[in-house]
């Protein structure tokens, strides 16, 4: 899995490309937690290039969301593919994590 980031005002936007699963999730979690440690507390995860999210991937999203919440920030997901929407729906994580259809919308929500 590849992760790329760009700064949009006060919001850091990361695009995750590939599968977020048992094998790739530790590195992604380290990267995102590292960014929070650098005082990036408003994050958008663009999942338009994410092929699949497994249970390990969901745990990463929850861990990052919890860490950001403790820091008083916000995590927003955006541009989810159908397969990822299904994973969030089945696991009921769509009730825990804010999800936007478009990146700009997600940036605005994270910045608010």
């Amino acid at each position, binding site marked *: 899995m590849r992760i790329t980031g760009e700064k949009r005002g006060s919001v850091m936007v990361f695009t995750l490309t590939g599968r977020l*699963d*048992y094998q790739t999730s530790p590195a992604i979690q380290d990267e995102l937690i590292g960014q929070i440690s650098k005082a990036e507390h408003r994050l958008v995860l663009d999942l338009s290039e994410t092929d*699949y999210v*497994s*249970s*390990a991937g*969901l745990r990463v999203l929850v861990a990052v969301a919890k860490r950001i919440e403790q820091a008083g920030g916000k995590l927003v997901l955006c541009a989810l593919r159908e*397969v990822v929407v*299904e*994973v969030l729906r*089945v*696991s*009921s994580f769509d009730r825990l994590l804010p999800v936007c259809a478009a990146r700009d919308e997600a940036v605005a929500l994270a910045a608010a």
Partner: protein
Amino acid sequence: MGLSSTPRVLAVVLPLVITTLLWGLAKLRDGVNLWDLTAVDAVTQVTALYSIVLMSTALLITTRCRAIERLYGGLDRSYRLHARLGEVALVLVVVHLLTLVPGHPGPSGRSLFVPFVDTWPKTFATVAFWTFGVLAVLTFWKKLSYQKWLSIHAWMGLPFVLSSVHAFGAHSDLRGFEPLRTWMLLWVMLGAGAWMYRTFFYKGAGLRYQYVADHTADRGGGVWDLVLRPTTVRMNYEPGKFAFISVKDHPEIPPEHHPFSISSSPVHRELRFSFKACGDYTTLLPSLHKGYKVEVFGPFGEFTLHPFGLHRRFVWIGGGIGITPFLSMLAFEQTNDDFRKIWLFYCVRTDADAVYHDEIKKYVDVADSYVDYVKWVSDDRGPLTAKTILEFAGPLDDYAVMMCAPPKMMRAMRKQFIRTGLPANRIIFEDFNFR
């Protein structure tokens, strides 16, 4: 249990309906008004025909044919039906004989029960009755070892053949009305063929896979793993299935067929069975060392996820050694993208009984599906209930329950889930009881 019972009910009832219709047509053809028949005469004739059809169905089930297994909802369910059909057929045979007593010569129709004193069709019937009776008594005698019981029970086909010969010799409708004769002949041939195949040819001709023992592992608490390696083509199976194994050329383990639940993932080449060493055969299995040949017959069972394809949320309940099929399913969940939300309850009496706890924990961490796992120790927390499960899982919609546990526990849990409003066809359980 669980899932739709309509196909298997139809598969039993429809042949009886057709038999009744053909019998009625035979009477009409002979100019007999059905309403003029005495109830006793009607019962005598119909019970004879029904018992042949039901015995034939019971024998067909024993062939372990995939299509028949599917029709009756899995092999263990088929075998439960096999037992019920056998019991009903026995009752029908007794009723058939009792209805003949009043019109039969001799005190209490004695010649009905004594062979070789009447015509040859009646002698066949008498011998069939006594053979059926003796075999039935031995079938219900639980003290017999499984293999002895099986070898005796295998002869149940004999009274079926004898009573069929009697029916064709004595039943005027069978002789005189071609459609009924053809229909009943079909059932007799199916039943007799199934019995011959299962009793005499299955060991040599049944689909089997060649494996060798790799190792056995003591999991504690009397629970063992048996790991086999294929020598040629491996058996493909769905998680949740079981298979029969037969050990070859072992000095202590007899080459009998015994069913075991598969606990490995189908993506692995090794085949693992998990079992509790508590019977004559299972206590011998730990001595199965590396290299011994093992034939594997299978896979069987319908305790799999595919009947629940429309559901993505599952409650899995494994009681004691009943956790075995879930180990296979959980291992498989590491390697598929068919995301599910699973609540797994591993119910044991004491903490020491939770011999697969560490393995489950390992799977849960790496499963593709999202698994919430609870080890439930009943000595500490009391019996697990549907209410407790729903408290853990939160408000659930669109979910299905799979259970593999002691029968008493499964029956209780099933009632509780139904009381919560869960439709019965979303509860599936397997008890692997073949006796």
